[in-house]
């Protein structure tokens, strides 16, 4: 800054630390709660410091059953979440790369029409057309399947636009040089375009992984079979338990485990994550 005002700098740090504390508060509470036995919650308040039942709760939740009406262990649902998240991520990236490639590097009739059809998906988030989409998937017999979990979510105008932008920034001479060097469309795609889009793909991967992992309403609707439960949606099933004792410690442990992978991805790949956010700007 321009002036050197120590107290202002100090105030800035203090405010930021306070902000970080407030943002972290719910997670802190969840972490504390998960270390107490289920009986601790009956007495009317959540304990404020760590208990000693942590290892037991986390072990149970991870390897035996999540509890509260969900019999599957967390590791198994994590696997489902991972399959769904990666399916959505790879699916979106692949079909968007291909369609953006077609739109930028080829001229063909109805090119604009295709562009608009893809653009329209931007206007139709799944939450908005939830009932008819469910019916379509039910008609196609895709309920309780990985295909049903992923396929309806992989069309993405955002990713197509991002790649279009990225491809448009590649100098035309590079394409010409490749043509003179005897590279056809496929060779150009694999030898030049993909390597040049590497960071964009990685950045988008981070964003889409979070999007895929955090899907909630869609898996909730189309899975009724334990075998396809994903971790995030299982929370809803755990909360809808009716018979009295809710094992809060288990719910908190499961919640923390459910947010762990995407949070780890954001923190571990912060640079790519920021790039992905800025690039896609929704």
């Amino acid at each position, binding site marked *: 800054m321009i002036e050197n005002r120590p107290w202002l700098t100090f105030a800035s740090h203090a405010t930021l630390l306070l902000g970080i504390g407030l943002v972290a508060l719910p997670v802190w509470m969840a972490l504390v709660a998960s270390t107490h036995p289920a009986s601790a919650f009956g007495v009317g308040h959540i304990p404020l410091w760590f208990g000693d039942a942590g290892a037991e709760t986390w072990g149970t939740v991870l390897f035996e059953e999540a509890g509260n009406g969900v019999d599957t262990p967390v590791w198994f649902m994590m696997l489902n979440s991972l399959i769904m998240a990666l399916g959505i991520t790879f699916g979106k990236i692949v079909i968007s790369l291909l369609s953006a490639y077609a739109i930028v590097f080829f001229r063909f009739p109805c090119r604009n029409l295709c562009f608009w059809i893809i653009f329209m998906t931007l206007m139709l988030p799944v939450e908005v057309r939830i009932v008819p989409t469910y019916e379509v998937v039910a008609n196609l017999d895709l309920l309780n399947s990985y295909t049903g979990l992923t396929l309806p979510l992989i069309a993405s105008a955002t990713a197509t636009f991002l790649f279009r932008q990225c491809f448009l920034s590649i*100098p035309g*001479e*590079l394409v*010409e*040089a*490749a*043509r*003179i*060097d*005897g*590279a056809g469309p496929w*060779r150009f795609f694999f*030898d*030049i375009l993909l*390597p*040049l889009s*590497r960071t964009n793909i990685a950045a988008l991967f981070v964003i889409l992984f979070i999007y895929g992992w955090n899907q909630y309403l869609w898996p909730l609707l189309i899975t009724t079979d334990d075998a396809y439960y994903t971790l995030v949606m299982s929370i809803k099933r755990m909360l809808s338990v009716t018979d009295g004792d809710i094992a809060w410690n288990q719910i908190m442990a499961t919640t923390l485990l459910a947010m762990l992978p995407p949070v780890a991805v954001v923190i571990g790949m912060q640079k790519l994550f920021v790039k992905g956010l800025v690039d896609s700007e929704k």
Partner: protein
Amino acid sequence: MTDVILEKVGKTYPNGYQAIPSVDLSIEEGEFIVLVGPSGCGKSTLLRMVAGLESISTGELRIRGERMNEKEPAERDIAMVFQNYALYPHMSVYDNMAYGLKNRGIAKNLIEEKVSDVAKMLGLTELLQRKPRQLSGGQRQRVAMGRAMVRDPKVFLFDEPLSNLDAKLRVQMRVEIRQLQRKLGTTTLYVTHDQVEAMTLADRLVVLNKGKAEQIGTPMDLYNKPATPFVAAFIGSPSMNLIDATLTEQGVKISEALTLPLSHQHRGDIVWGIRPEHLEVSDEQNGDFALRIQAVESLGAETLIHGKIETESANGESMVVRLSGPHLPDVNSLMWLTAPMSHWHLFDAKTQQRL
């Protein structure tokens, strides 16, 4: 043997814009042809049509007797060096040079041999494992040329390859390109807007203006006998003095008060030209006309004097005089000049053709 023939080659874009009406050009094997002209004159379009990057709307392109109009760029056996070099940024220098050969399915050991030969010739051996972004401008330029050379093509195409380099490097690379081309003996088509580059490199020059070839000839032909005022102005630096005049029985009438005597059968409006270096300093008795000096540019080896022909009326024609060695005439003073008739250039004002 004639190597490349352009026969009435023209380009009309789908939106109806006619970039090039019709160009005829035949290039001998091993010849260095430079296409030169101001930006937007169609020189790059013409080059790209030869490369196969733009379709040919009318006419025919033949390389070694074979019609090329419908061939893909890769099938024409040409190589191109781009203005921004167009090096693949994610590939090493070696891979950049080898890519075209790999795509043609050439054996690996043969590729290695060719690349290392060319790298040696261009002094790139030490840089083969580097990425383009780790190279200087001049080195990138060399890699771009190496990529063209390894393929050993029938024709080299250069699209303003030196315009991204600084002045000093440009001169150095210019000489190098000329030497390499002589050594390899490959037919070359080179596009530039820089007339110095054009004059120094070319066996023959094609001056393009608005898609038309104004004149095709050796650099000295163009300098000594420009076919049109456009060529006259474009070739030579500083440009030729060109003045609107009328040809009468008395001679070239530049203004009411000034007529330079000449006997010529042509009558009517003309453009009269003389190069700055051909004007000679004289005195009031022997001079053809006087120049009112407006500015003096001393460059040491030569001096450029800008002024206006002194007449009774206010607006005399502007002129530049180029004198060798240092001169320091006063601004606003008068300088008497003679214009030797052997250096005159006369053009018909209507047809723009040389008389």
